[in-house]
C-alpha cells in the first residue's frame, strides 16, 4: 500500500510535469503561495468592507469547491486519461496485471489525491498567509487553525463527491433519489428552521470556534462518506458494450446552419454519450453557482441587491466560459490528424458549439434575475454574463488552444489568464457599482475577444499541437 501510494504520487507528478514541464508545474504551488501572501496584505482593506466571518465563508467555500472539483476529475478521470494517454497505462488500472485488488487501488487513489492536492493547493495557500501574518498582526495560531479547517473543507468536498460518484456508478436511480433528498433536506432545513447552510458547514464552524466535538463531527463528515464510498466501490470494467444507431447523419443535417456541421454533430454526441452534459452542468455549473449565490446573498447586507445580481452575473460568465473545456475534454487533435481539418477550423467549430451552450447561463441568469426580484437589472446582468463569458473564452483559447483542461495547470498560463480576465472583471465590477446600467458597456469586451480569437487562429495554426 505504501509503495503503491509513493508510486501513484510520482505518477501524478510525472503526468502533470510531462504535460507542461517540470519547472512550470513546480512553480504552481509557489504561485499560490505568492498570491496568498500578497492577498493577506489586503485583509485590512477587506475587513473594512466585509466582516471577517464572511471572508472565512468565502475562503472555506473555495476549498470545498476545490475538493469537489478534484473529486469530480476522479469521477471522469478514467475516460479523460484514456483520451489523453492512449495506450499508456496508469497505476489506477493495474489490478488487471498486478496482484492488487481494485478496492485497495481505489483507497490508495483517494489517499494519494488527498495528499497530492493538499500539497499543491492547501499547504501553499496557508503558508502564504502564515508568512504574511507577522506583518498584518495576525497571531500564528490562526494560520495553523486555517490549515486544519481548510484541509477539512477540502476533504469534505472530496469525500462528498467520491461518495456520490460511487453511488452513481452503482445505480443512477439511487443517485438521483439521494441527490433530490439532499437538496430537499437542505432547502427544508433552511425554510422551516432558518438554519443557514453555513451552520452545517462544520470546518467553518470549527474556524469560528474550535471545539473537539466540532472537530470530531467534521472528521466524521469526511470519514463516513469516504468509508461508504470504499464499501460501495465497484469496478468500472464491468460496463456492457452499448450499441447506438447512426446519429451523425441526422444531426449533421439538423445542424446545417453551423459552419462545420459534422464537427458540431460530433461535439454534441461526445457531450451526451460521455455523460458530461448532465454531469458537468450539475457539478461544474449549477453546484458552484448555487454556492456562489449563497455567498453573494450574504453580501447583500452590505451592498445593494442589484449590485449583488450583477456581481453574480459576472461570476456566472466566468464559470460559463469553462464550458469550452466540456467540448475539448474528450477530444484531442490526434483524432483529426488523419483528416483534412486544420486547427483554426476546429477552434471555430468548438466556439460555435460553445455559443450554443451559452443558452444555459443565459437562461439561468434570466431566471435568477426574476427569482431574486432584480428584473430591473435583467438586461445589464444578461449582457454582463455573456460578454464576460465570451471574453474569458477568447483568453482561454488564446492561452490554451484545444487543450484548456490541461494547460490551465501551467503556472504561466494560469497567471496570464488570471491577469487578463481579472483586470477586465475588476473594471466591470467598478462600472456596475457606479451605475448598474453602465454594465451594458461590457458588450465592448466582444472587440478584444474577437481580436484575441483571430490571433489565436494564427498562433495555434503555426505550432505543433501539444501531445499529452
Amino acid at each position: 500500500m505504501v509503495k503503491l501510494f509513493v508510486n501513484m504520487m510520482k505518477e501524478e507528478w510525472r503526468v502533470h510535469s510531462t504535460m507542461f514541464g517540470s519547472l512550470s508545474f513546480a512553480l504552481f504551488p509557489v504561485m499560490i503561495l505568492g498570491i496568498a501572501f500578497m492577498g493577506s496584505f489586503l485583509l485590512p482593506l477587506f475587513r473594512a468592507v466585509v466582516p471577517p466571518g464572511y471572508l472565512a465563508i468565502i475562503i472555506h467555500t473555495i476549498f470545498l469547491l476545490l475538493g469537489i472539483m478534484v473529486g469530480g476529475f476522479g469521477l471522469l478521470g478514467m475516460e479523460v486519461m484514456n483520451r489523453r494517454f492512449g495506450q499508456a497505462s496508469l497505476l489506477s488500472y493495474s489490478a488487471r496485471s498486478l496482484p492488487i485488488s481494485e478496492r485497495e487501488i481505489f483507497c490508495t487513489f483517494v489517499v494519494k489525491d488527498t495528499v497530492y492536492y493538499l500539497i499543491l493547493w492547501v499547504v501553499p495557500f496557508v503558508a502564504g498567509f502564515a508568512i504574511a501574518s507577522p506583518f498584518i498582526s495576525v497571531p500564528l495560531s490562526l494560520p495553523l487553525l486555517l490549515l486544519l479547517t481548510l484541509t477539512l473543507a477540502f476533504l469534505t468536498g472530496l469525500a462528498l463527491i467520491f461518495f456520490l460518484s460511487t453511488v452513481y456508478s452503482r445505480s443512477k436511480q439511487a443517485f438521483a433519489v439521494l441527490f433530490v433528498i439532499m437538496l430537499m433536506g437542505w432547502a427544508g432545513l433552511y425554510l422551516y428552521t432558518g438554519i443557514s447552510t453555513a451552520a452545517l458547514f462544520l470546518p467553518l464552524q470549527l474556524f469560528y470556534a474550535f471545539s473537539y466535538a466540532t472537530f470530531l463531527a467534521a472528521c466524521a463528515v469526511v470519514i463516513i462518506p469516504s468509508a461508504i464510498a470504499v464499501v460501495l466501490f465497484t469496478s468500472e470494467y464491468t460496463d456492457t458494450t452499448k450499441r447506438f444507431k447512426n446519429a451523425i447523419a441526422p444531426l449533421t443535417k439538423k445542424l446545417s446552419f453551423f459552419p462545420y456541421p459534422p464537427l458540431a454533430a460530433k461535439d454534441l454526441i461526445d457531450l451526451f454519450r460521455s455523460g458530461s452534459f448532465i454531469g458537468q452542468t450539475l457539478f461544474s455549473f449549477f453546484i458552484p453557482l448555487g454556492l456562489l449565490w449563497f455567498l453573494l446573498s450574504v453580501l447583500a447586507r452590505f451592498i445593494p441587491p442589484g449590485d449583488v445580481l450583477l456581481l453574480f452575473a459576472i461570476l456566472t460568465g466566468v464559470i460559463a466560459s469553462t464550458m469550452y473545456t466540456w467540448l475539448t475534454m474528450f477530444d484531442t487533435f490526434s483524432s483529426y490528424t488523419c483528416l483534412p481539418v486544420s486547427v483554426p477550423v476546429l477552434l471555430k467549430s468548438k466556439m460555435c458549439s460553445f455559443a450554443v451552450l451559452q443558452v444555459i447561463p443565459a437562461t439561468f441568469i434570466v431566471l435568477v434575475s426574476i427569482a431574486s426580484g432584480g428584473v430591473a437589472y435583467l438586461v445589464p446582468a444578461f449582457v454582463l454574463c455573456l460578454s464576460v463569458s465570451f471574453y474569458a473564452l477568447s483568453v482561454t483559447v488564446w492561452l490554451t488552444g484545444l487543450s484548456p483542461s490541461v494547460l490551465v495547470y501551467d503556472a504561466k498560463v494560469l497567471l496570464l489568464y488570471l491577469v487578463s480576465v481579472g483586470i477586465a472583471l475588476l473594471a466591470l465590477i467598478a462600472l456596475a457599482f457606479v451605475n448598474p446600467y453602465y454594465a451594458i458597456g461590457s458588450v465592448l469586451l466582444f472587440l478584444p475577444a474577437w481580436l484575441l480569437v483571430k490571433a489565436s487562429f494564427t498562433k495555434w495554426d503555426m505550432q505543433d499541437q501539444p501531445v499529452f
Partner: protein
Amino acid sequence: MSLMEMKQGVIEAQGLVKQFGDVIAVNNISLSIRQGELFGLLGPNGSGKTTMIKLLTGQLRPTAGSATVLGLDVKKDPVGVRERVGIIPEQETPPSFLTATEYLDFVGEVRHIPDVLKKADWWFDYLDFNDKRDVLCKDLSRGTRQKLMFTQAFIHKPTLALIDEPLINFDPIMQRKVKDYLTEYVRCGNTIFISTHILEIAEEICSGFAILHKGTLLHTGTVAELKERDQHLDDFFLSLVEKGTHG
C-alpha cells in the same frame, strides 16, 4: 496524378530536420518516392519513423528542410495534403463516443465522400467487422479499431496512403488480407508509404525501402537489389544498424 507529379515523385523530401528541444528526431533526410511504389521506412523503435510520417502529412512542422507530397508543400498546405492522401497513425485514434458507422459517416462528411455508408458496407464485410458497426469506438478491441482506421484511410480511394505500422494489431488472417489489399492497391498505380520495424513484412511486400536509425538515414534501396545479392533484409538491416550504433 499530373505529369509533373509523376516526374518529380509522389513524395519528395529535401534535408528534413525535426528537433524537439535538444533531441533531433529526424536529421537532414532526403527521400524521393515514385508513383506505384510500396515503400517501407524501416528502423528500430525510436528511430524517427513516426516523426517522419507526421512531417510528411503536415501533423508536425519541420525545423528545417522541405517536403512535397503529391506536389503540395507540406508546410504551406498541410490540410491540402491530408485531403488527398490516406493516413493511418501509429496509435489507432477513432473518437471514443462515435460508433464505427458514425465515425466513417463523419469521415465521409469531412472528406465530402458521396455514398460513404455504401462504401463502408463493403469495408465492414471485407475486414470482417460487420457485427461491430454500431459499437462505440472506445469499446472496440485494438484489432477492430485498426480495421476502422484502415477503412477510413482507404474509403476515399487516395492515390497515396501513409501508414504507420500497418499490421501491428491484426491477427494472421487479417494480416494476409491487408497485405493482399496493399499489394493490389499498388498494382493499380497507387503509392503506399509504410513505416515498420517488422522486417518480414517489408521484405514480403515492399518494393523500395529506407533504413532510419537515430533520426539519420542509413540506406535507401530496393528489395530486388538485395535479392540479386542474395541477401536477406534482416541481415542487411542488422549489420547497418550495428554499424550506425558503433560508428
